[in-house]
């Protein structure tokens, strides 16, 4: 019984952590998408440059655990 309770709370804790990670990833994606759109406008429609900045912003956000 104790093992079942332990495993359940472990699984819950893990799913909470996974959910938090997903939230950070979604937030970072939304932020990076906004930067991509702004950059595309600023860079005269240059996808390569806009993606360079958008992807950098996404990676930086993930590394810092979200903004």
């Amino acid at each position, binding site marked *: 019984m104790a093992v079942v309770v332990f495993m359940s709370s472990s699984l819950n804790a893990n799913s909470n952590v996974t959910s938090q990670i997903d939230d950070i990833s979604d937030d970072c994606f939304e932020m990076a998408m906004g930067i991509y759109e702004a*950059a595309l406008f600023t860079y005269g429609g240059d996808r390569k440059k806009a993606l360079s900045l958008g992807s950098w912003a996404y990676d930086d956000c993930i590394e810092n655990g979200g903004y």
Partner: protein
Amino acid sequence: MKIINIYILLFLTFNCFSQKNTSSGSVIYRVGVTNLKDTVNVKNSNIDFYKRTISKLNEIRYRLDFNNNKSIFILEDFLVNDKEKNNFFLKSAKLLAGEEIYYTDLVNNKVLIQQEFLGDLFLVEQSLDVDWKMTKETKMIENFRCIKAETVVKKGKTYTEDIIVSAWFAPELTIAFGPKGYGGLPGLILELSFGDVNYFVSKIEFEANPKIEKPTEGIKISSEKFETYILQKVDEYGFEKQRKQN
């Protein structure tokens, strides 16, 4: 008669040595915007991003080193202090103006562009041939009479809109080079507009043998395949798909 011949000989000799060698040297270009973008119906956040990016363009310089048949165009960082180097909008301004290195080879009619994209270094090869249209417009730049030529970079995989490129070249300077690998005109390009980003001459120096090294590091790829790769990565990241859904 003999004395006159000696004077003529001395004059010609002096003339030959005193003429400047203009077939090699360096040009420093500064960067600005030609016209501000139309911001009607544009989100405030995009307008703010745009204004803060272009405010940093005056911190950027480029150098074009050239000789008879080769040139290299490269970003110079000397104006930026350590604190500014991490400034997000300076980063954005450098992306806007370009961080690529352009090596132009007139003999082989090629431009080699060394550039970083998503953490990888590429050597993109493209033809030097540009479909230039001459105009009748002229203006003085740095005491050189310049003529305007234009071309269009068509929208496609890399660009979502057509880009108008204008080049002001000086026929007096018989050097077929310019910023961003553009050249093949009967004169050095002293001012180039790529869309609304403007590269304009700040200083010209003529010297005997500037160092021009061909970039060799990077994944070799044609410009067509590189454009396909860019679009593939845009699809993978999904920033445009999400935008369409929204």
